[in-house]
C-alpha cells in the first residue's frame, strides 16, 4: 500500500506546509503499514530532501505545460500518479492551491474528501479522523465510507520532524490532456519578501483601536522584530487601512499560528472564529472588559500607543542577548 502526498512548490521551492504534509503522510503510512511517495510538479529544488520528512520515494513531473499552476491539470497529474502507484490515500496541504485541487481529485476519483484536518486519524480501519468545523468553534469526528480518500491538512497544525534519510526519485512522464477547456494564467501579483499569513508561525494583528493607517508603522515594526506576518480585523480592511488579504476571521482568512498578538481588536465572535485556533494569544487593549481577554493567554490592559514602542524595544533587547 502506498500513500501519495503532493509536495507543493512555489516558484520551484517547497513550502513549509509541504514538509508538514509529507511528514503527516509518513506518520499516517506508519499507522496504515504503508509506504510514502511524494509527488512534485515543476519543483526546482533537490527533491531527495523530502526523505528528511519521511518520503521513501519521490515522483517528479517536469513538463513545460505545467510550469505555471493550473488546478485542472495539476489535479489530473496527481490523479495519474495516484492511479499508477495504486495510492488510495492522497494527502494535500490546504494552501490556496491545495484548496483549488483537492475537491477536483476527490470528485474524479470518487474519493472521500476531508478538509481542515488537524490530527492523525484516530483509527485507520474504519478510517476515523477529526477536522475543524464551525469556524474552529467545534471539532467533528468523520468516518470515510470509501477506501479512496483525499486528506487536506491545515497548515501549522503539525510539527514536522527531520530524519536522516533521503528519498529516491524517479521522473514521471506526464503530458496534460488538452481536451478540456482550461484557464490561462495571465499574471501573478505576490507581495514579495513578506511572510505569508496562513503559514506564519507568529502573527501581529491590529484593529480599529489603532485609529488610522499611519499608525501601522509600529505594528509593522513589531512584526519585523519578531519575524511575524501582519493581519488585521475586518473593519480595518473594509475602510481600506490595510489590504483585504490581511483580514482574518470568520469571513476572512482562518489562521492557527503559534502566537497571535491582537492589538486594539475587541474580539468579536466573528473575529475570534478565524484566530481562536492560535496556540498562544496575546491581547493588548485599553478596555479591560474587551471580550478578547476571555480568549487570551496573556493580556495587557493598556494603550497600544504606549505599549507597542516599549514592547518593540523589549523584544529588540531580548533578541540582542540571544
Amino acid at each position, binding site marked *: 500500500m502506498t500513500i501519495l502526498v503532493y509536495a507543493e512548490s512555489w516558484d520551484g521551492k517547497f513550502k513549509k506546509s509541504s514538509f508538514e504534509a509529507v511528514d503527516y503522510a509518513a506518520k499516517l503510512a506508519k499507522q496504515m503499514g504503508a509506504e510514502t511517495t511524494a509527488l512534485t510538479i515543476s519543483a526546482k529544488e533537490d527533491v531527495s530532501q523530502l526523505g528528511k520528512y519521511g518520503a521513501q520515494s519521490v515522483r517528479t513531473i517536469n513538463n513545460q505545460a505545467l510550469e505555471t499552476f493550473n*488546478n*485542472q491539470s495539476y*489535479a489530473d497529474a496527481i490523479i495519474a500518479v495516484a492511479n499508477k502507484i495504486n495510492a488510495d490515500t492522497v494527502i494535500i496541504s*490546504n494552501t*490556496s492551491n491545495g*484548496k*483549488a485541487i*483537492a*475537491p*477536483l481529485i476527490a*470528485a474524479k476519483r470518487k474519493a*472521500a*474528501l*476531508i*478538509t481542515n484536518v488537524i490530527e492523525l486519524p484516530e483509527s485507520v480501519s474504519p478510517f476515523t479522523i477529526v477536522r*475543524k*468545523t*464551525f469556524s474552529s*468553534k*467545534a*471539532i*467533528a469526528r*468523520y*468516518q*470515510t*465510507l*470509501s477506501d479512496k*480518500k483525499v486528506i487536506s491538512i491545515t497548515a501549522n497544525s503539525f510539527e514536522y520532524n527531520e530524519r536522516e534519510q533521503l528519498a529516491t526519485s524517479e521522473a514521471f512522464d506526464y503530458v496534460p490532456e488538452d481536451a*478540456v*477547456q482550461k*484557464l*490561462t494564467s*495571465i499574471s*501573478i*501579483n505576490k507581495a514579495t519578501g*513578506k511572510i505569508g*499569513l*496562513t503559514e506564519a508561525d*507568529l502573527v501581529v494583528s491590529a484593529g480599529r483601536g489603532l485609529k488610522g493607517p499611519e499608525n501601522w508603522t509600529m505594528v509593522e515594526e513589531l512584526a519585523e522584530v519578531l519575524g511575524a506576518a501582519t493581519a488585521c480585523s475586518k473593519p480595518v480592511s*473594509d475602510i481600506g487601512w490595510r489590504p*483585504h*488579504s490581511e483580514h482574518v476571521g*470568520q*469571513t476572512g482568512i482562518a489562521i492557527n499560528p503559534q*502566537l497571535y498578538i491582537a492589538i486594539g481588536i475587541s474580539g468579536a*465572535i466573528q473575529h475570534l472564529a478565524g484566530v481562536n485556533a492560535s*496556540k*498562544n494569544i496575546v*491581547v493588548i487593549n485599553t478596555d479591560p472588559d474587551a471580550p478578547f481577554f*476571555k480568549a*487570551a*493567554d*496573556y*493580556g*495587557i490592559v493598556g*494603550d497600544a500607543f504606549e*505599549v507597542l514602542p516599549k*514592547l518593540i524595544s*523589549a523584544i529588540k533587547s*531580548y533578541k540582542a542577548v540571544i
Partner: protein
Amino acid sequence: MKILVCISHVPDTTSKIVFKNDLTEFDASGVTFVMNPYDEFGLTKAMHIKESLGGTITVANVGLAVTESTLRKALAIGADDAVRINAEPTDASYVAGLLAEYAGTQNFDLIITGRESIDYNGGAVPGMIAAHLNIPFVNACIGFDLNAEQATMIREIDGGKETLQGKLPLLIAGQKGLVEEKDLRIPAMRGIMMARKKPLTVLEASDREKHTNVLDYQLPEEKGACTLIDADDVEQLVQLLHSEAKVI
C-alpha cells in the same frame, strides 16, 4: 446569460455552537439561519452581470423545507427562480453530485458558489460540481469580468492574487471582493412582494453515494485564565513568551 447561484443555509455568525443527542447533532434550537455570507457576494455579482448583459438567475439549494426562507430571500433580492433539491445535506460529495446532476440538465453559462459554507467549512462542494461538469473552477474568486465569451477572473492566492482568463461555461467560488460589501443587495419591499410569485421548484433527490459520515462533535477545550501583565512591565511578557509559551 444563464446563471446558477448555489446557496447554502447556515447559522448566523453570532450563533452559539451547541450539540445535542450525545453530541451527534448540531442543536439548531434558538439559532437564526441566514444565507451563507460568501453566497451573498455571489448573488449580488450575478445581479450585476444580469443587469449589464441580460439573462436569468436561478438559485439552488440542497436542503430540507426549512431552507426555503433563504431561497425566498434570494428571490426577493432578484433571482428569477429557485430550486430546492429535497435532501439533508450531510456529505459534500452527495450535495455536489445532486447540484451537478441538476446543473447538467440546464446548460448554465456560469455557476457561482461561495468559497466555503461558514458552518461545516468544507470548501468542497464548488470544486466537486466543476469536476462533475468538467468545467473550469476558480476558487477564492475576488474579481470577475466578462467581455464577449471571454471571462477574466482574479483569485486570491497565499499572499497575493492571480489573474486568469477562460471561456464560459465555468464555475467560480466567490468571497468579498467579487463585489464590495457596501454593494451587497438586500431585499426591498417590492422584491419581497414579487418573490411570492416567483417559482420555487422542489426536486426529489436521486439516490447517490455518500463518502463521509459524521460520528460526533466535540467543543474545543476551554482556555485557562488569561495572565494579565502590567503595561509598564512588558519585559515580563517577553519573558513569558520565551520561557512559558516557548514561541520566541
